[in-house]
């Protein structure tokens, strides 16, 4: 494992050597008449170099992917039979001990003889594997490079071959996006299915009680392990609603002002400044919400005789709204600018004032785009994590009162997964079920928003 960078460097050196030899060979086979070659000499070099390095790198990747699994299996097989019969979680603990022993870390308990023997075996197998890996990849690189080298003739279509390889690489890169989506769906789906085996889907979606702590001992208090997510949805919705009621009016009005009224100079200054709001990391907003806004709201509420929680939904929602202003304003700005000038001119010709034109003509014409922008902003608000983690509460309460503390889907994902965790408990798996839900809700909102925006754009093109 630790030798991988060295191996990669060796392979790259080998491939640059291959380039050099391939190029020289091209000159040699042309017999001094470079024009008789099908491709430029550099392509012959590249051809050999790519053939030398790509198969070896593929083998390297596969090897590293499966090395650990195979070695672990072999080690377990070599251990006394009672270990093989252990349940997976116990076996994992033993294997962790072995790995720690190999790396030289602190081990959880005093290692006994079998563990030490297994660790030795593990170390030995790793050594063999590393040597074998070096031999296999370097050997393969030499052989495949040599074969490619042997193919060089003046009439060999090296450029086409190289271009095919490069095209293959480009296509491979472009599928990463799909692989990512598949990876997201699979990773959350698998764990979610395991979660739903323990907790029925209906309880998760419609249950009114959320308290994910599960009692480890029977006599432990207050740890029922209830997974009804409705309070989380309600909290998310409440905070999103507050954020939208800040962001939509301010964002929309400033977009209108900047697009229709402001002079070029004001626009050139105010627009980038507003967009700075979108570039500030969300953790900064979270800190700002928790340190400045929440106490301010609490104190001013206290003066009015209101009892406001220090982690009120209002503070988180307000700050999230500020964060979302630029999303609403720049997207609305685009759609307002896309409304054809002829509509404005028509309205002015009828004697309408600018504000009447905006309210009666431009906004109705731009409405689908604005709705799309708001939907995108809503999806952003639902998925926002740091502000709510830092400024909203943890208690899952089913309330519509913005002065109380509520919790959201993202807050729960973070609290369930940060810190020590066992990977099989429904508590951890619940985070993935919430993630699945979050993914699909935001996906649906985005698809809908993009559909609306595209539909609207076509109208005026």
């Amino acid at each position, binding site marked *: 494992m630790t030798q991988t960078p060295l191996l990669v460097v060796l392979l790259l050196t080998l491939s640059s050597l291959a380039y050099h030899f391939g190029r020289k060979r091209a000159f040699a086979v042309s017999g001094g008449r470079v024009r008789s070659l099908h491709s430029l000499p550099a392509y012959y070099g590249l051809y050999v170099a790519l053939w030398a390095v790509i198969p070896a790198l593929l083998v390297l990747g596969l090897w590293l992917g499966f090395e650990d699994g195979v070695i672990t299996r072999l080690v377990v097989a070599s251990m006394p039979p009672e270990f093989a019969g252990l349940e997976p979680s116990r076996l994992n603990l033993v294997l962790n001990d072995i790995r720690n022993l190999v790396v030289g870390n602190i081990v959880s308990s005093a290692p006994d003889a079998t563990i030490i023997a297994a660790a030795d075996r593990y170390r030995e197998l790793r050594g063999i594997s590393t040597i074998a890996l070096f031999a296999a990849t370097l050997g393969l690189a030499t052989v495949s490079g040599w074969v490619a080298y042997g193919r060089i003739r003046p009439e060999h279509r090296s450029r086409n071959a190289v271009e095919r390889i490069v095209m293959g690489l480009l296509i491979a*890169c*472009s599928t990463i996006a799909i692989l990512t989506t598949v990876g997201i769906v699979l*990773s959350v789906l*698998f764990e979610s299915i395991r979660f739903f085996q323990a907790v029925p889907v209906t309880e998760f979606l419609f249950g009114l009680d959320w308290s994910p702590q599960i009692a480890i001992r029977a006599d432990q208090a207050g740890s029922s392990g209830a997974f009804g997510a409705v309070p989380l949805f309600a909290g998310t919705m409440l905070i999103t609603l507050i954020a939208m009621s800040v962001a939509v009016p301010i964002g929309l009005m400033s977009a209108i*002002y900047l697009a229709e009224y402001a002079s070029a100079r004001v626009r050139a200054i*105010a627009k980038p400044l507003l967009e700075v709001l979108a570039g500030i*990391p969300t953790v900064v907003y979270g800190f700002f919400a928790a340190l400045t806004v929440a106490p301010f709201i609490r104190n001013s509420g206290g003066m009015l005789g209101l009892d406001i929680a220090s982690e009120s939904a209002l503070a988180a929602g307000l700050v999230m709204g500020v964060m979302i202003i630029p999303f609403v304003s720049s997207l609305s700005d685009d759609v307002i600018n896309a409304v054809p000038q002829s509509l404005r001119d028509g309205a002015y010709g009828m004697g309408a004032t600018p504000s*009447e034109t905006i309210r009666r003509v431009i906004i109705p014409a731009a409405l689908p785009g604005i709705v799309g922008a708001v939907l995108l902003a809503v999806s952003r608000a639902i998925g926002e994590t740091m502000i709510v983690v830092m400024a909203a509460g943890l208690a899952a309460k089913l309330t519509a009162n913005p002065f109380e503390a509520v919790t959201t889907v993202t807050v729960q*994902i973070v609290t369930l997964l940060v810190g020590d965790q066992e990977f099989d408990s429904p508590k951890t798996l619940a985070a993935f079920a919430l993630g699945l839900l979050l993914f699909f809700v935001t996906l649906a909102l985005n698809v809908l928003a993009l559909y609306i925006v595209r539909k609207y754009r076509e109208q005026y093109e």
Partner: protein
Amino acid sequence: MSDASETARTSYARVEAGMKRRRAAERRFRFLGKCAVGLGLAFLAILFVSIVGNGYSAFWQTRITLDVTIDEATIDPAGAREPQVLRTADYGALIKQSLRDMFPEVSGRRNRFALYGLVSNGAGFDLRDKVLADPALIGRTISLTVAADDDVDMLMKGHIDRRAPESDRRIKDNQLAWIERLETDGRIGSAFNVDFFANGDSRDPELAGIRGALMGSIYTLLVTLGLSFPLAVSAAVYLEEFAPKNRWTDLIEVNINNLAAVPSIVFGLLGLAVFINFFTLPRSAPIVGGLVLTLMTLPTIIIASRAALKSVPPSIREGALGIGASPMQAVMYHVLPLALPGMLTGTIIGMAQALGETAPLLMIGMVAFIADVPGGVFDPATALPVQVYLWADSPERAFVEKTSAAIMVLLLFLATMNALAVLLRRRFERRW
């Protein structure tokens, strides 16, 4: 005829009658627009003022000058000056001794403990470094300036009110008296806070620094940049220049657009399930953080790169093809160099996004307390925004200014990156 002019006059009068109301409505509307812009800008200003106001003082540190007698019997009883002995000796005892010497009237365990609490726990390490660098100091009395404890620091910076009742203060009356004596002796002062930039994280606010988080962020970003730039440029070149228009490429395109809007925390879940649990990469390591952020920033960079490729006029391609270049050569040698500045701009913006991202890093365990400065991409590390999150959670008053200062550093980096992107765009943007 008169009938018609009559109608015209009445309708004119009707319009005229409504004009006042309509003009007022116009002014109101315009005022609302101004208010909206103003409110947005005001929020921005409040945010910055609050962060800078809380954080600027963290760049200074209260320091106390002590006269320390480096007693040979305490740290090197054998007198052999062996580095191993010198390294593990009890330098804290020397610091405590010097405090006792300075305030000989202090007696009793409790009071002494309060006295020792005036200077930072790190004072002993400062002394150790000094002695290790120059063993000849042993046996002499030197004047040593060490960091004060965070509560003393807060008092000196005015965050603790000296006139508040004693029970409300973290600094008690006896400590206050000692500090005042130090003040009159001119032994307490403030200096530029080097520790903040030189140290890793610490439980003691006066020793905590951002170096570890900064290095973690840099390693993470290096991984992200190294992976996402080539991947994104290749994907953009394929999709924009070579891809046939079919179901498959449509699917890729829809995918990219949707990934750009997936909440970042979902990418964290992906990283946890795939990179850590499936590929068993180490937890808390910049390599995993880099991989996750790569997947997150790819759509941004791909979209920007495609826009850059699109802006290169077709005549360039046609010219290259016309003189016999293959399509691949036309793209590689002629289109790509012209599109590169735009792609770089997009990449820098993507990197700025990645630098500010916190939520996915929480999922993959980069949130642990790590005091060491990471030395590579496989070492456990944290990142700058995560450090902000960690410090924001700490109860000590002194961490508030540390958090704000870390945010200022983070914002400075972001501003630099964005300025670079703008500069690049201005410098190389070409209108065809």
